[in-house]
């Protein structure tokens, strides 16, 4: 592979220009992204073919006339040889043609375009909230509970974050609906009308990941403040703020990022459950309805969109890691 050559040169240290490791990283990361993308596309294409029996018959029901089923099969291109279907599927993806819904007869791309923004906003807000809460919290508690300090704080924090992290997002959502919707009546519990409607779904989605993430960052922070380079920073007699935020934090984040990536990408899928708790008009409600009604083209497209979201998050995490820790550029993935 082309990347191995670049890597070998990046590996011979001392003489490398600053731009080289980035080139190697970009080639490797792009290669991995493309392979993952190909697997995702192929898996969603094959999904309809892996279904036992005739998917069209299953979708239309046992009472549907045979002619209708045959017509539908032709319309979906299922009578063509598999390679032709695959080529058609890929061509459709490139041109933005994702097929037609078996249920609503609407173009799938139109439904996705209509439902996607609500999901993106929900996931985006929850994502930002989780990170902006977890990082400062993890760092602060990490400093407070560094070796030989704050044992009670540590116990309280760990217990709370373990409990909050164990509660699945949809159960947390149900609890929020009960407390703020049914009990207090402060906030809307269904739909996406108005800013206040975002509060509970975003909270339901963000609290668990924020708890887990802050716990990871705390543990890393506690370890990192003991590191030799933090002692070096202290030897420079820098203010505590600079020592913790300038020297300890980037390293704590580096160590947390891999796990953070897993947590954050699971939030993409987490929207499905949370959307169903709050009747959110996004893709999460769509995919569940489509699975129940066996609307396979629709399911295929939504799985693709979610998968794409996960790949984007994973790639962004790797880029963030590379920016924070230059050593990861030359490390074999």
């Amino acid at each position: 592979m082309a990347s191995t050559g670049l890597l070998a040169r990046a590996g011979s240290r001392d003489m490398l220009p600053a731009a080289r490791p980035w080139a190697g990283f970009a080639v490797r990361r792009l290669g991995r992204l493309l392979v993952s993308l190909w697997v995702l596309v192929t898996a969603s294409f094959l999904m309809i073919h892996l279904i036992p029996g005739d998917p069209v018959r299953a979708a239309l029901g046992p009472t549907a006339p045979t002619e209708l089923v045959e017509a539908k099969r032709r319309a979906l291109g299922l009578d063509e040889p598999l390679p032709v279907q695959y080529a058609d599927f890929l061509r459709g993806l490139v041109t933005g043609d994702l097929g037609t819904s078996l249920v609503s007869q609407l173009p799938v791309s139109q439904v996705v375009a209509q439902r996607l923004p609500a999901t993106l906003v929900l996931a985006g807000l929850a994502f930002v909230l989780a990170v902006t809460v977890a990082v400062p919290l993890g760092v602060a508690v990490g400093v407070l509970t560094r070796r030989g300090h704050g044992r009670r704080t540590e116990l309280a924090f760990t217990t709370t974050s373990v409990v909050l992290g164990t509660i699945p997002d949809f159960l947390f959502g149900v609890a929020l609906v009960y407390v703020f919707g049914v009990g207090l009546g402060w906030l809307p519990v269904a739909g996406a009308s108005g800013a206040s409607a975002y509060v509970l779904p975003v909270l339901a989605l963000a609290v668990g990941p924020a708890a887990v993430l802050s716990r990871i960052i705390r543990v890393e922070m506690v370890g990192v403040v003991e590191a030799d380079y933090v002692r070096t920073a202290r030897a420079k007699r820098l203010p505590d703020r600079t020592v913790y935020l300038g020297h300890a934090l980037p390293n704590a984040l580096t160590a947390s990022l891999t796990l953070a990536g897993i947590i954050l990408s699971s939030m993409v899928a987490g929207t499905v459950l949370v959307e169903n708790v709050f009747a959110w008009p996004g893709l999460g409600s769509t995919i569940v309805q489509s699975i129940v009604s066996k609307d396979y083209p629709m399911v295929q497209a939504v799985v693709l969109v979610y998968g794409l979201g996960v790949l984007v998050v994973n790639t962004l995490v790797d880029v963030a890691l590379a920016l924070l820790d230059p050593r990861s550029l030359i490390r074999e993935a």
Partner: protein
Amino acid sequence: MGRWSTAARTPLGLTAAVLAGSVLGLAVLAPVVWGTSADAVDTGSILSPPSGEHWAGTDNLGRDILARTLVATRLSVLLALAATAIAVLAGLVLGTAPFLLGRRLGRVVTAAVNIAVAFPGLLLALFFATIFGVGATGAVFAIGLAGAPAFARLTQTLVAGVAARDYVAAARVAGVGRLRVLLRHVLPNISEPLVVNATVGTGAALLSFAGLSFLGLGVQQPGYDWGRLLYDGIGAIYVNPAAALTPGAAVLVAGLAFNLVGETVAKALGVGGVARRPGRAPRAVPGLAPVAADEAPRAVGDDLVLDVRDLEVTVPGARGPVRPVRGVTFSVRRGEALGVVGESGSGKSLTALAVSRLAGDLARVEAGRLTLLGTDLTEADGRAHRRLLGTSLAMVFQDPTTSFNPTRRVGAQLAEGARHHQGLGRAEALARAVDRLGAVRIPEPERRARQYPHEFSGGMRQRAMIGMGLMGSPSLVVADEPTTALDVTVQQQVLDLLADVRAADDVALVLISHDVAVVRSVCDRVVVMYAGRIVEDLPAASLDDDARHPYTRALVAAVPDMDTDLEAALPVIPGTPADPGALPPGCAYAPRCPLASARCVEEDPSLVSDDTGHRVACWHADGPAEAATTAAPGEVGVP
């Protein structure tokens, strides 16, 4: 089995056992006990809120929610176990495939697992649920297969670890087939972490199943698990909130039970990752507190850079506070090089950190006097102090690889202190950093300043560390084992550099080392430490023929030189260094000393100075030096 009962007696283990026991007990008994009442339709009380008769209210057919929740335990647990079994089985097949299939095919499987594991389990579950169709059976397969990649990845990692061991290689060489090796030698050795993860995985499967049923994709009516009850209950949450909250709570408790059991098992087996750190040491009062000096201060010359009197450092230990530094007194003059030698644990590094005020806030540092350039360091930690320490005192640490921040460029790490203390701008500070890198003989300093520490070699990093100290105008360099972590070939370069720094600007040097040869070659004066005390303070030139403490003589004798007999074993000091937590009442060195007498065991000798300033703490210092030197090699001959 002892570890199991121990684990079960911890609060965590007890909670886990009680919770898991209740869940499993309910799974067995609940359908028998409440089966009838769970299905009893009561049209008289449809969707009623909690009452004395129905503690959690009723559903849309008037059936008792609490009874249904309890009965649903069996199905929920069984489905979770079935899904976990599929995940474990599929994961084992995928995870051991690389071992069984050989390199080429194995790589394909590994790559596929790596790609699959990047996607969240729920997304995989939805994908498989579409294929297998809506319903309990489909959901079992969906959740099982969705959990497989993570389990496969774990198995792969564990198998790869064991496969590299000698006994596996030996079995392979002996011609045992791959499958047989796997079953006989590999799997038994990785079963413990697999069991832990399967237990935790059951909890996760339970939660996932609740999620899938809650979405309406899992268990279908008339069957019901917790997720299905939740699905039915949430629609009526305004009428009877308990209909949603009761099964929700059940899911949570059961999920927690499996997680806790997993963690308890992990702890009992000592499987890493899940277990927490051991207990913390008790907290000491941090900071500096002056103690009374029992000795009249010596005349303080203008050229005194560092003056330390009765330095004591107390740190928290496992069994109460420990004092690894006990009353250390020394001073360093401008341009002087002082070596501090001793075995590990003698307190020399902690002394260096304490005088540099870097001992950390767990260590309690007390001193009768501690001044740097005449400024009292025992006072509060003000900005002026920080500037003085930041510009006049340079630290060089043992391991240059870990002492640089890996995430920041070398130039920026040098410039940082100067920007803070000397008020230099970014460009100015960086220019000075480049200049200093050049001064410590780093070639192409401009390019190097833009690089990260991992792009430097070890010797270069240590020189850069010295350069960092030269950003200010240091009067004192404290170097703590500066060459220990380096290749022998570059050790001399670093020592020469330290000597040059010292010569160029009359900088004082405190060199901490366990290596008498290094200290002798660089320093004017040597302080020998043992068990947190100075036992001798003498000119470096006197080490060979005027060392009066038996410990100093033993240290010197342990250094090979050109005349050393290569056939004979090198002399070592018998016994082990003193434990600062359990010091004898007399001389700490007495248990290892060839000259030890009754007095040595009972009374600790104090450090006494002669007219020339040669200090020694030994009852036999004035005694027959000949006897000691002849006795020492004989005693120290055999390791």
